[in-house]
């Protein structure tokens, strides 16, 4: 097959999407939508060029001039806080001849100076310096027309900064919809909000971004086998079906999904993820609604995935197998697509700003030892995701249809106090079916 879009590839995409549309409500998903170059080309245009993509947390750029470099597809953006305190994002590309003006992954700068010809921009994007301006471009040169290109849309929700390549995109608020209620379980757990524990770990996995997302949006079912080693060690609860319990909730029409897990029946687990009591006391009054507090109090494992590629995971944990008391961890991640069957994971450890220092240190350990590049849970996920992607890209394998039928006969839980559609069990593919409905809507639109 040559490079670019072959005639055959162009036929393949509509066929695969049709097959997905026809099979989805029966729980049948064509393997061929994974690790496919033509599907990926369309995803770049229809999904990643239109969706709100997580860029950074406000605590990564706390002071004027602080910046981090982040990506949407292969576009590099400088996410920078200006002298006026406002966070902006600019394409890291000199307006003159295209060189990158940002010289680091993170730092503090009042100005960005292009190393090619020296055009210099203030950290609010304004072009302020052009070497030999008068001699080179004449008296009438209007620098105001040549500032850095801002990202088409940028918005923040409780410190979470998202960008969108589509100038016509709906607001972030509309995009999040009812997912907001669930995000707040984490962002409003403390009146001070969250902070990053440091820069993200970045690592590359040969898999499809959708496979990584699937695990975090819905797939509780994999824990009993993929993470069996952690059950054997007594790190995960002894009841191998521990992740089955709780509620799986999706936001119809948006593609977002969350899992709220209390704990296996009979398991003695402390309330409120096992956070220290002082943090629990603060949460009691910092949540916007009583329902959120009551749900949070009974939660031990919590995940949210926002369409298309942001996930957070917040489980009760101990920093190691001998540590006597729980120290829950929180990770944010972006499943950044690099190409068909290839992603880069950006993985952050997060913690409440006003958590006690001893707790922050232990929460960092809980995170590092279980999730991220060396995480003893995540190691096995990435190993498995890469083999699934490899199979899905094989000539025979891509013709198969995967089984997404779990939980099809379960009725929604009418008593769930939160928004969205809740199911009273996590061994269900309901969040995945909802995700792929939204995926299809965008891919066909």
């Amino acid at each position, binding site marked *: 097959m040559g490079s670019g879009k072959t005639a055959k590839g162009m036929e393949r995409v509509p066929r695969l999407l049709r097959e997905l549309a026809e099979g989805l409500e029966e729980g049948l998903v064509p393997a061929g939508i994974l690790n496919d170059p033509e599907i990926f080309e369309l995803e770049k245009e229809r999904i990643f060029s239109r969706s709100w993509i997580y860029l950074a947390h406000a605590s990564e750029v706390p002071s004027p001039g602080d910046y981090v470099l982040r990506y949407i597809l292969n576009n590099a953006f400088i996410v920078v806080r200006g002298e006026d305190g406002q966070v902006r994002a600019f394409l890291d590309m000199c307006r003159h001849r295209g060189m990158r003006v940002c*010289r*680091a*992954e*993170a*730092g503090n700068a009042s100005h960005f100076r292009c190393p090619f010809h020296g055009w210099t921009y203030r950290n609010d994007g304004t072009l302020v310096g052009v070497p030999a301006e008068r001699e080179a471009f004449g008296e009438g040169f209007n620098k105001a027309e040549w500032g850095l290109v801002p990202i088409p849309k940028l918005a923040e929700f409780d410190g979470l900064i998202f960008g969108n390549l589509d100038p016509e995109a709906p607001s972030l608020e509309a995009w999040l919809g009812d997912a907001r209620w669930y995000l707040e379980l984490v962002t409003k757990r403390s009146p001070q909000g969250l902070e990053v*524990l*440091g*820069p*993200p*770990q*970045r*690592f*590359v*996995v*040969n*898999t499809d971004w959708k496979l990584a997302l699937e695990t975090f949006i819905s797939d509780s079912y994999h824990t009993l*086998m*993929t993470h*069996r*080693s*952690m059950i*054997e*060690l007594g*790190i995960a609860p002894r009841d191998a079906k521990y992740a089955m319990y709780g509620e799986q909730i999706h936001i119809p029409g948006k593609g977002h999904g969350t899992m709220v897990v209390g704990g296996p029946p009979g398991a003695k687990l402390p309330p409120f993820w096992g956070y220290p009591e002082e943090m629990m006391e603060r949460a009691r009054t910092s949540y916007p609604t009583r329902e959120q507090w009551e749900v949070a109090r009974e939660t031990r494992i919590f995940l949210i995935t926002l369409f298309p590629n942001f996930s957070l995971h917040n489980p009760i944990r101990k*920093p*190691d*197998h*001998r*540590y006597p008391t729980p120290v829950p961890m929180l990770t944010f991640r972006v499943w950044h697509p690099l190409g068909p069957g290839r992603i*880069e994971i950006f993985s952050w*450890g997060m913690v409440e700003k006003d958590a006690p220092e001893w707790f922050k240190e232990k929460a*960092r*350990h809980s995170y*590092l*030892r279980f999730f*991220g*590049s*060396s*995480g*003893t849970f*995540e*190691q*096995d996920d*990435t*190993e*498995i995701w*890469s083999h699934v992607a490899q199979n899905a890209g094989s000539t025979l394998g891509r013709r198969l249809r995967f089984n997404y039928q779990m939980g099809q006969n379960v009725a929604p839980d009418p008593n769930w106090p939160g928004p969205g559609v809740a199911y009273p069990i996590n061994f269900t593919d309901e969040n995945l079916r909802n995700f792929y409905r939204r995926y299809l809507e965008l891919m066909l639109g």
Partner: protein
Amino acid sequence: MDITREVLEFLYREAELLDEGRYREWLSLTTEDVLYQVPVRLTRERPPEGGYGGVSERMFHLDEDRTSLEMRVARLETGFAWAEDPPSRLRHFVTNVRVGEPKPTERGEEVEVRSNLLVFRSRWDRPEYTFLSAERRDLLRRENGTWKLARRVVILDQSTLPTHNLSFFL
């Protein structure tokens, strides 16, 4: 035996255990208070004072003590650690070894050792492989006549890891 020779023998013996997956024996080469860190590496501008920067003091790929190292080893022994079962074929190349002046401390004789590290990793039947390149900054301590690893900080040369996990030790 001179100290450089002793340190080289320690590092080569250690590399052999890591290459062969003899992790229990490897653990016995570490002190009870061992600190084992792989900080996140970042692209940063050249610091005015020279040298290189971009070694995060806040975030790591691994930040371990003896107990958590034991946990990782115990996990590999469960038979369900898919990331390393089948095991990666690893080869630790340790070169450019620089041995500091041994110093007596209240914990025993200690010596700082810096070395360059190249780790080759191959999995399954694919011809592709990954390399991790780094500097090790070690502190060895003599306990009951034998050298043990008391501290290791691995300064990676990669900002974004080219591999899907760090399921092994550097």
